[in-house]
């Protein structure tokens, strides 16, 4: 039923709101896909990655450079998928030997390497100045048209959401939670821990890469500052704010990532966003560690329990 409502709203929205807001909603959808990716890795599997923005960037630069190299439109998604699987697996290899903090540091180093690559291939990528991205056109479809970009993002985000909800009902989804909560218990029931972590890295890389690919075409411009350490930390803020391990939480996080900077820009203080982002992360971790959605769920459960008790007492 939830998906039905989602589809109806998504279909009606372009008739209700103007082009600018449609563009903002498109961005929310794109960031939701990427945030769902980090949620799979961090929220569900418990692996802290500081390279998520790099995976987002890999997708974005596939789009940006495809024009230069003349990669056909239909091949690009395959390329994004392939790169995400390969690089995701490569970054996951240290999980064979590392966990926790040390793993986070290796992913951080990978993120640095990615930004370094972009900066030092400046004749291709425009370096730290960034580059414009030629719109994606296929028949009547043109990604620089707000409605077309919106449709692309809507379909992709719907797919990603359905997949992540479904993941929660599968053996792989259960393995991830088990690996996050107790590696000893996981091993004792036969869960292959390393394989689960690598699968989570790959799945999260695919989601981030796909989101980045759409992002580049919709926004029309890419620069490495979007994909650096601070970009990765922002994704982390989104996951934690929304609520780790919850699909709806990732959407809330994406709303925050897109809307809050818009609000600050509109009142003339674009620099405030990172400050607020840092503060949000600290405050959320200290006060509502389950995130917005997790806390609402908890509240709902408590109210339900109280009502149930009253009902029994009264009857």
């Amino acid at each position: 039923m939830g998906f039905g409502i989602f589809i109806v709203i998504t279909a009606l929205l372009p008739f209700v709101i103007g082009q600018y807001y449609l563009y903002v909603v498109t961005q929310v959808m794109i960031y939701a896909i990427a945030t769902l990716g980090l949620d799979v890795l961090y929220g569900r599997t418990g692996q802290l990655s500081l390279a998520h923005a790099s995976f987002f960037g890999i997708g974005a630069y596939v789009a940006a450079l495809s024009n230069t190299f003349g990669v056909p439109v239909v091949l690009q998604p395959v390329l994004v998928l392939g790169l995400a699987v390969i690089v995701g697996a490569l970054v996951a290899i240290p999980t064979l030997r590392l966990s926790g903090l040390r793993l986070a540091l290796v992913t951080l180093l990978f993120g640095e390497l990615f930004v370094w690559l972009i900066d030092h291939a400046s004749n291709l990528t425009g370096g730290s100045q960034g580059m414009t991205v030629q719109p994606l056109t296929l028949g009547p479809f043109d990604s620089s048209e707000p409605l077309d970009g919106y449709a692309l993002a809507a379909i992709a985000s719907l797919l990603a959401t359905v997949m992540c909800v479904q993941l929660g009902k599968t053996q792989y989804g259960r393995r991830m939670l088990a690996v996050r909560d107790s590696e000893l218990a996981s091993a004792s029931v036969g869960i292959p821990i390393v394989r689960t972590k690598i699968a989570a890295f790959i799945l999260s890389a695919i989601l981030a890469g796909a989101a980045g690919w759409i992002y580049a075409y919709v926004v029309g411009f890419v620069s490495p500052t979007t994909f650096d350490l601070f970009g990765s930390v922002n994704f982390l803020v989104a996951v934690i704010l929304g609520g780790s391990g919850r699909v709806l939480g990732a959407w809330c996080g994406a709303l925050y990532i897109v809307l809050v900077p818009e609000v600050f820009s509109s009142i003339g203080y674009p620099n405030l966003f990172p400050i607020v982002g840092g503060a949000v992360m600290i405050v959320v971790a200290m006060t509502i560690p389950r995130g917005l959605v997790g806390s609402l769920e908890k509240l709902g459960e408590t109210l339900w329990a109280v009502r149930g008790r009253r009902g029994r007492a009264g009857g």
Partner: protein
Amino acid sequence: MPEVEPLSSMGGEGRLELRQIGVSFGGVAAVRDVSLVFRPHVITGLVGPNGAGKTTLLNAISGFASVERGTIELDRSELTKLPAAQRAHYGVVRGFQTVRLLEGETAFDNILVGCERASQPNIFAQLFNLPAQRRSWRRDRGAAAEIAERLGISSVAHRPVAELPFATRRLVELARILVVRPKVLLLDEPAAGLNAHGRRQLTETLQAYHAVSPFTMIVIEHDVDLVRRMCSECVALAQGSVIATGDPGHVLDDPEVRRAYFGDQVHHA
């Protein structure tokens, strides 16, 4: 009634044989030269004073401690070098003394995790909810509900485990193990931390389950009465070596066992 296919598809029924097992930590031998045969479907009690090497032996069997010498065989398959997760797929499953659960999840989801050992469709079938995935989803939920019912924890199945009392958490862990029938079940002081009522309930539950679908079981327990009630065989360890085996009454009354177990504290015996 959905039934979970037992994973014991490799034939055999759970005959576990240890040959001259040796385990040591930093040069100190915790288990030395232990050779034992656990017969299929028999519940064996593992007794001995603290530091006798009981938990280490259990860890060695389940793959949580690496064996330096000797071999471990289950129905003629050698397990000695296999990691813990693979041994679980052979049907060797353990509980933890302190109970290890997925703290963020409900009791029901904790039980579902135990379905890992049942065969599952491939990842594409899982992610795209193909018919194979839908079948296994129904099967797993059915099996989890059934075992929750049998262990009497249905009413708390949808509560987060972090909120449950210890005795219930113990049952949740047991349900996670039993949701797919193990070939060899290893329990480390399952009655520790339970009151008299909880202990009786646990033993009755285990015995009832064992009577319906039997498996080989090795249980470390300090409660002598519980061992007498539940186990049909008994192994006593002291300082890493086996000092007596056989019928529980016989082993527990063995003078050497009593000396090792109770030291000089027992004067009234």
